[in-house]
């Protein structure tokens, strides 16, 4: 089945130690998103890629970076994790952005839960 796979599912890191989370998709979708979700809150969009075009949300801290080396893979790099960065990180994909009758459904991965000690 076509899907969105996130690794690792659980990541424990120390304060300040860089972390990379990965996301892969077999849907051949153009758009890949990274969301941050803190305990039972609404997911918050960090950034997204439309193909190779990177779109950063205005309030995303510089501590968060992303790479998309090809259509299938996208990485979230947290350069110096703080205690406040402990959260579930959700990757999602869609065929396109925007609205219209073809407004696209996002397909989410299962998430990567980050713990910062």
């Amino acid at each position, binding site marked *: 089945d076509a899907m969105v796979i*996130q690794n690792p599912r659980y990541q424990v890191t120390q304060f300040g130690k860089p972390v990379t989370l990965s996301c892969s998709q077999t849907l051949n979708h153009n758009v890949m*998103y990274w969301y941050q979700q803190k305990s*039972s*809150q609404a997911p918050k969009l960090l950034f997204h890629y439309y193909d190779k075009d990177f779109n950063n949300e205005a309030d995303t801290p510089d501590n968060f970076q992303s790479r998309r080396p090809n259509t299938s893979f996208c990485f979230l790099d947290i350069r110096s994790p703080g205690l406040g960065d402990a959260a*579930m990180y*959700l990757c999602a994909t869609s065929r396109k*952005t925007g609205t219209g009758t073809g407004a696209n*459904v996002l397909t*989410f991965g*299962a998430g990567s839960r980050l713990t910062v000690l």
Partner: protein
Amino acid sequence: AQSVAQPEDQVNVAEGNPLTVKCTYSVSGNPYLFWYVQYPNRGLQFLLKYITGDNLVKGSYGFEAEFNKSQTSFHLKKPSALVSDSALYFCAVRDDKLIFGTGTRLQVFP
């Protein structure tokens, strides 16, 4: 700016009873509305969407939602709740990005 509101943090319902999870929206122009469900320690799963057409939208797992333009609402409903429906439900509106409501925890008791 587009937004959705979920007025209830939690909804409790007995198994077999009908359930409603409320959502109201604020948009300029035509709304593109969605419902997603999140089970514990999992990502979000798409349930249904309203773009245009019939106001009653049917989705996965027996859920449906009614788009009401006069009340600016998009409530999620199911005629007969199951214990396995217990989860976190998010209403969302799509602009250039998907904007989620704060979520409603549905608890279905046996």
